[in-house]
């Protein structure tokens, strides 16, 4: 708790801005039904389609006459959770994989790292497309596909941090006291490695949302008529005269990505002892 308080006191304005943006989107995602004037799927009005932004439809209407504002707000539910889940899965798998490789070292490390390099050697978007296409295009398969291509980043970062942290005397001291390997990893190494990884996770949140939107844009993420930002941008591309259809979901993606990056930057500055004022 203390750390969180110190973090908030930290003068970084950008960090707070990022926090406001991301928490704002999470609140919107949770309370979407209360905030939207129309239903995102059922309130279709073919007669009133392609309406420009107005007092009635703040972000205009799309090709089926649905309210873009409502769809953007509802879209946050899927986009935000897809990004978060992808990052969380990769984070968990990466920590486990990289932690073991870095801690055990030797042949185990070599084999595990060659495996992660193998995954990384594929072009990410194409591999995700292949996996999503093979499993069938729906939300959970797309998230799975993204997690599969995403975890090696975390594994490699975790490994390199663990290798440097395990050289510390307090790890040796713990071994001399007779602690088990699991206990050493969990009590000594992990708490001292988590910082840079948390930074990477926040920075990645934006990327994951972008990529998921990319998959949806290509028709592999969510299927219409479910509102999702990437899919909505893709909707508007064919009818570019009606700029509002693509622009507003695009701005939503942009805001989350940049908010997450601000948080990540702030976190990194805070964790870097040279940037941190003594408490």
């Amino acid at each position, binding site marked *: 708790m203390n750390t969180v308080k110190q973090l908030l006191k930290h003068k970084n304005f950008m960090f707070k801005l990022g926090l406001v943006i991301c928490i704002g989107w999470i609140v919107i995602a949770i309370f979407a039904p209360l905030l939207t004037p129309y239903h995102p799927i059922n309130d279709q009005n073919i007669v009133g389609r392609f309406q420009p932004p107005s007092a009635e439809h703040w972000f205009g209407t799309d090709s089926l006459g649905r309210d873009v504002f409502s769809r953007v707000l509802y879209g946050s539910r899927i986009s935000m959770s897809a990004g978060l889940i992808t990052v969380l899965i990769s984070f968990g798998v990466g920590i486990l994989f990289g932690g073991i490789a870095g801690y055990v070292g030797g042949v185990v490390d070599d084999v595990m790292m060659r495996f992660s390099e193998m995954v990384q050697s594929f072009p990410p978007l194409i591999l995700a497309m292949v996996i999503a296409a093979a499993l069938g295009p729906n939300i959970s398969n797309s998230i799975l596909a993204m997690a599969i291509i995403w975890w090696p980043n975390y594994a490699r970062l975790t490994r390199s941090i663990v290798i440097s942290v395990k050289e510390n005397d307090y790890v*040796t001291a713990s071994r*001399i*006291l007779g602690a088990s390997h699991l206990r050493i990893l969990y009590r000594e190494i992990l708490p001292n490695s988590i910082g840079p990884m948390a930074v990477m996770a926040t920075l990645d949140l934006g990327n994951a949302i972008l990529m998921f939107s990319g998959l949806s844009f290509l028709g592999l993420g969510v299927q219409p008529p479910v509102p999702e930002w990437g899919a909505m941008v893709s909707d508007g591309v064919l009818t570019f005269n009606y700029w509002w259809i693509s622009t507003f979901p695009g701005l939503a993606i942009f805001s989350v990505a940049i908010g997450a990056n601000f948080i990540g930057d702030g976190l990194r500055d805070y964790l870097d002892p040279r940037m941190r004022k003594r408490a």
Partner: protein
Amino acid sequence: MSNEVLLQAQDVRQYFTVKKERGQKATLYAVDGVTLSIYKGETFGLVGESGCGKSTLGKTFLRLYPLTGGKIVFDGKDISRLRGKELKEFRCKSQMIFQDPSSCLNPRRKIEVILSEPFIIHGLYNTKEERRRRILELCDMVGLSSAYLERYPHEMSGGQKQRVGIARALALNPQLIICDEPVSALDVSIQAQVINLLEDLQKQLNLTYLFISHNLSVVKHCCQRIGVMYLGKIVELASAERLYQNAMHPYTQALISAIPVIDDGSERPIPQQIVLSGDLPSPTSPPVGCAFHTRCPHAMERCGKERPTLQEVEPGHFVSCFLYEQIP
């Protein structure tokens, strides 16, 4: 100090495989055939320059690495191949004090949590009150105010952190404590305090120390017997008194002549300083023959071919050098 042996090392060897450039592998002979005994209640000093394997030897005695060769007998029991539960039991009997007090404590844990670790690991003092009482007892022993228990390591000075390190090492009531340069990272004024503390604790708890250091004055002050290491081998082993009065091995002579002497205008002659040329050879490719012959002022032809063994030249004084070889 008694005549009972606490730890006996027989031809202990500790090699590591290191990667060189272009993926080649080389063997690093960190400890190469060390034989010595440490008696109960004594302070055994281990000196030598950086990279000579003295820390590795200390850690080998703690069974931190799988032993390459040789045998370690601790309190009458062969510990060189212990595993699992037996190794965990051995962990209670020998502990270590580290050189760098700032890296020996987990920066994310309060001192109280750090000092509770040994008890949690070994399932001792299971209630919170019992554990608390024992921790306070330890603090008292090492002269640490109980107010520090609520602090994080970065909120303490080096000397205080070192006291925490000592308290942690004492927590399980060990018999042997490996002191790996325990004072070289501290301010001079704190050094004396810590050394006195270690000496007091030794008397109180009947501890045995293996004192690793490159500071010859400190070693002279607190050790009864001293081993001089060079490139993974013991080159000379004697009582502290004899070693300083009558150093025999050319390497020891050079080391001792390097201790600064204050010219106080007295009649005492200032000894000639012996300056060694060259660097410590790489432990991945130690010289053939005597390890020291590349830098030895007295090197003979024989030194480059044969390896001398540790021989007792006077009672309790062992030297590994052909200059003193007794012809039978």
